């Protein structure tokens, strides 16, 4: 192809002209459940990869192999363990793997592993020699996955200074990004809802957080977080299953070869796969989580009131009322099915009412200050009265777990009850994508603004000041 690949009649813009807002920056938004990555200015992240990864260690191999991405981690294999590099509070524990996962999120769908558009441009700009050769060289030299694009990363508001420095180090030194910026997830979520002042309630997988944002600035002392989030609801469902009489069998899909329809509540009659080995417990748990997600989507509902689920009005328990309501059927992958009536309200009630949480000896009830209303209250108490009023009229609810049916309505009811004086206005993005990827979206909007140009921390500045610059520049 060598001959004839000459620069076009019109010269493509030179590499130097591509800067800031012209080359789309990459926005990376890591979370406990998924890592979102995409180009700034787009409305959805192109790349959403699970944070869970596989460690595959066949008995005959020397070292474990890391498996990233949906395609690699759902097939039962002997010696496959599923792990998450973040701890239960959403803080990075395994920094090396996390960096690799982040890189995978960027390269797998956005940049490609070797591809580098700039390399071609350079080849042309120099206009020397055979472009083919230049391209070959580019593949050798441009191993750095982000040599082309500025990178905006998001972080939880309670990230440690050390973790922040580590992030810029990875981005600039390992990935070779020319410019970097670190944004707070809460602030960015507020931007995604088009607000610069908001009280952001983010219900994620591992953590629920409340972040007051005033005039585009996060109010650090007002950040509150608690573990009552998506994983907590999953655990509640597991307990409910285990404690019901007879226990509900939680069977993941991979075990079942084919199922037969059975009557409600009767044992499943499925044909099961025989693996000849026992898939690891972590793998099973990870796959069970898929079933629980389906359960959350189609059965679980947040009690809609009036009042809390436990202890209803006029002495009559709401639980009794709930039992009279129409149930929702759920079928397990093995065909076992049942109608859930009152149970489906119980699973999420613990988010609001610590007394309602399902408990077990090894799973103590949550503390009262961890519940959603108390969390919001604690956060608001740290702010000035006038700011508080503004925040209450701009409550933004985001995060995947906020999609639990009826959650926003219930939260609205709880807040209205707590703050009778000021007007409470709750806003939750309409589309599921905006809700799940709010902080990514905020980052995408921010990074594509022309005025953001000056905010980037350039590689030069990093080289001059060291990683500590992130503390000064990205507040």
């Amino acid at each position: 192809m060598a001959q004839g690949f000459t620069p076009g009649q019109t010269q493509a813009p030179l590499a130097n002209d591509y800067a800031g807002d012209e080359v789309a920056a990459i926005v990376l938004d890591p979370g406990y459940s998924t890592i979102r990555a995409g180009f700034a200015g787009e409305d959805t992240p192109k790349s959403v990869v699970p944070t869970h990864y596989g460690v595959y260690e066949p008995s005959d191999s020397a070292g474990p192999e890391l498996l990233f991405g949906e395609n690699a981690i759902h097939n039962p294999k002997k010696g496959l363990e599923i792990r998450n590099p973040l701890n239960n509070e959403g803080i990075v524990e395994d920094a090396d793997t996390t960096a690799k996962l982040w890189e995978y999120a960027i390269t797998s769908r956005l940049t490609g592993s070797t591809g580098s558009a700039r390399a071609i441009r350079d080849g042309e700009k120099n206009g020397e020699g055979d472009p083919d050769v230049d391209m070959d060289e580019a593949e050798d030299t441009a191993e750095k996955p982000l040599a082309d694009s500025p990178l905006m990363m998001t972080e939880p508001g309670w990230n440690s200074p050390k973790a922040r420095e580590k992030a810029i180090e990875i981005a600039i030194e390992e990935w070779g990004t020319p410019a970097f910026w670190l944004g707070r997830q809460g602030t960015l979520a507020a931007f995604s809802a088009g607000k610069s002042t908001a009280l952001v309630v983010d219900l994620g997988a591992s953590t629920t957080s409340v972040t007051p944002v005033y005039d585009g600035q996060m109010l650090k002392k007002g950040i509150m977080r608690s573990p009552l989030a998506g994983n907590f609801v999953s655990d509640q469902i597991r307990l409910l299953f285990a404690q019901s009489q007879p226990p509900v069998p939680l069977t993941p899909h991979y075990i079942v070869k084919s199922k037969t329809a059975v009557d409600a509540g009767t044992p499943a009659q499925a044909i099961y796969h025989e693996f000849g080995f026992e898939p690891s417990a972590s793998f099973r748990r990870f796959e069970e989580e898929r079933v629980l997600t389906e359960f959350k989507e189609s059965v679980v509902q947040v009690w809609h009131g009036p009042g809390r689920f436990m202890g209803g009005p006029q002495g009559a328990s709401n639980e009794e009322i709930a039992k009279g309501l129409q149930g929702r059927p759920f079928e397990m992958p093995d065909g076992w099915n049942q109608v859930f009536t009152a149970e489906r309200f119980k699973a999420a009630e613990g988010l609001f009412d610590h007394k309602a949480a399902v408990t077990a000896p090894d799973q103590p009830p949550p503390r009262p200050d961890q519940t959603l209303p108390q969390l919001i209250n604690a956060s608001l108490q740290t702010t000035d009265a006038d700011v508080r009023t503004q925040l209450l009229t701009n409550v933004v609810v985001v995060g995947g777990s906020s999609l639990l049916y009826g959650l926003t309505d219930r939260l609205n009811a709880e807040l209205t009850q707590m703050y009778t004086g000021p007007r409470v206005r709750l806003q939750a993005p309409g589309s599921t994508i905006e809700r799940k990827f709010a902080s990514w979206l905020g980052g995408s909007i921010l990074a594509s603004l022309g005025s953001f140009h000056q905010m980037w921390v350039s590689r030069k500045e990093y080289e001059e000041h060291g990683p500590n610059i992130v503390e000064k520049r990205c507040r």
Partner: protein
Amino acid sequence: MPAFKDDQIIIISPGSRTTLAQLGLPESFTPAKLRFKSRMFPAEKDGEWEPFKVRRRGKPAANGDAPPADPQPVAEDGEDGVQYEEDIHSDEGAIWPIEEGRITDWPCFFALMTYVYNTMNPPFHTPILLVAQPAWTSREREKLTQFFFEKFKTPAFGLLDSAVAALYAFGTMTATVVDVGFEKADVTAISDFLVHEHGRTVALPRCGGEAMTERLYEMLKGRGFTPEMCEQLKTSPICEVLPLGVDLPLVGEGEREAPANPAAAASTGANASGPGHRNSAGAMGDAPRGPGPDTDVGEEQKEDDDNEGVLDVASIVTGGKMNEYLARKEKEKAEKAVARRKGAQEAATNAPKAARLPNSKRPRNTFIYEDYALHSALKDMNLSGQKMAEMQAALSDAPQQKQRTADENGDSAMIVDGYSSTEHGIPRDGPIRREIEVGIERFQAATGGILENLADAIHRTISSVEEVNKRSELWDGLIIVGNGAKIRGFKEALLATLNSKYIISPSSATIFTSELPSNLTTPSGTGTNTPQPQAPPHAAGGSNVNPLLFAATTSQNPHLNPGSQIQPMHTHNTHSSHGQTPTSIKTAKIPEYFPEWKEAGFDEATFLGAQVAAKVFFVVDQSGSKAYMTRTDYNDQGPSGIHEFSV
């Protein structure tokens, strides 16, 4: 006036194995006019590429039939004696620039595109529509855009996602596209033309046609099969994926009836020859010609004087045992002819019955193997033209006139390269055809877990669609395309797997409510399906009415249901309160407007969709849909502008 004419549109659809291309849109769309193997050969000069294997050969040498010890003796010949010859079939030393949908060797890929483009020899004002693999990253798409604009000076360039292309072919807006390729499969959920990038299964490895070939090889290598044989077995009509629950035909049964119909042996060469074929030869005292469950090929192969079961004839030829082998082959043929004559008389009456048995009931069946390896081994020996023809005749099992039928009646996905159409090559220069028998392994190509993996990926993809109310519709619109899904019975088996693993039966506990009108959106007659406001079927608290009755009446009239009053600020709160999916699984039906496509099958419907899309983009709506980038746009925005234009 449209900006572009029908006959000036190029469509290129690169795949890991096969690249389809076409210049111009005919009145009625036909399957791709040009098929290329997606591979190039490094030329002698660095950085240049050749579309075919180039063989150096000396002048027809005197040592004609003495098999040379060194397989490539001519390479050392003097310069003056060297001739070059293109071998259009050989893949030896080829570089396949696309692996699992990803472009792994860019110079090679660009060379392939250049070759494809030049083969079409398009006129000046020709827009290009490239069918993009889902695995291509954004940056890679930019790179491609730059290449096409600057190398070919195209006036307009469009990138069409392969899944969207399939959608166009099926004339629908919402579907789950399962594209089973060579080494990978892609599963894409699309609703209202919108690709759900999140959760999309991109390039699921080991779920394509190659995985099935490997599976066959794994089972058959003990019988002396080569991977190439398995590949051809897979593409032959006798390879099937049997529906779930259908037992494999018992070997015993076949054995019993086999001696009864030796006549079937007479139909050598036809794909549908009887199961008794080889057994009858055995009964006549002849040695088994091909591998079968009862020939111990693996061991015998090593013995010099017992080569009957050997399949890899090419190695014999290069190994210098040619003459011995040929002699035996002659004898075999003669004996077989006798057998044929004898058998035909006795068993002519029994034969038709057995021959009518469908493939799936027979324990054994045969297919025609086109032995390119042997052919090229012969070529390496520098035989003269006549010698070559003799050798071919001697080695070939299938009568030459049968070849045509084998090509036609098989769904044989034989790839014909650009200009090597069928009239060229076959009589003298064709591959050596041999008949090979295979047992029940031919039904087990998909037993390596490929169906389960694919089914799981489909479930995962649809389950990660954010708009849960769309999922039911996505399950009802499965589109299975790709040549990997071409094996007989594959699609049915995949559907059966999905059905047996994932379908949600109406719960017996809610048998009454399950008959309530679904509150999921259903496509209306006009094809428009606006999302209906969702009515949660559960009634509000405090109602004393029978909740089931209440739900039955209110679910059709959401405003009657007090529980569903949604706070004004959550207008689009349609994210939850749905039933589990799937409650039914259906495949989308393809509109059969195009007779040529109907005839060829819709495995390559992606290309049909690309044709439809090209017509729509370049001719009907022009730039209105912003589905392609013009030269002017490119000059203004550079390669990264492509993301605003591609579909």
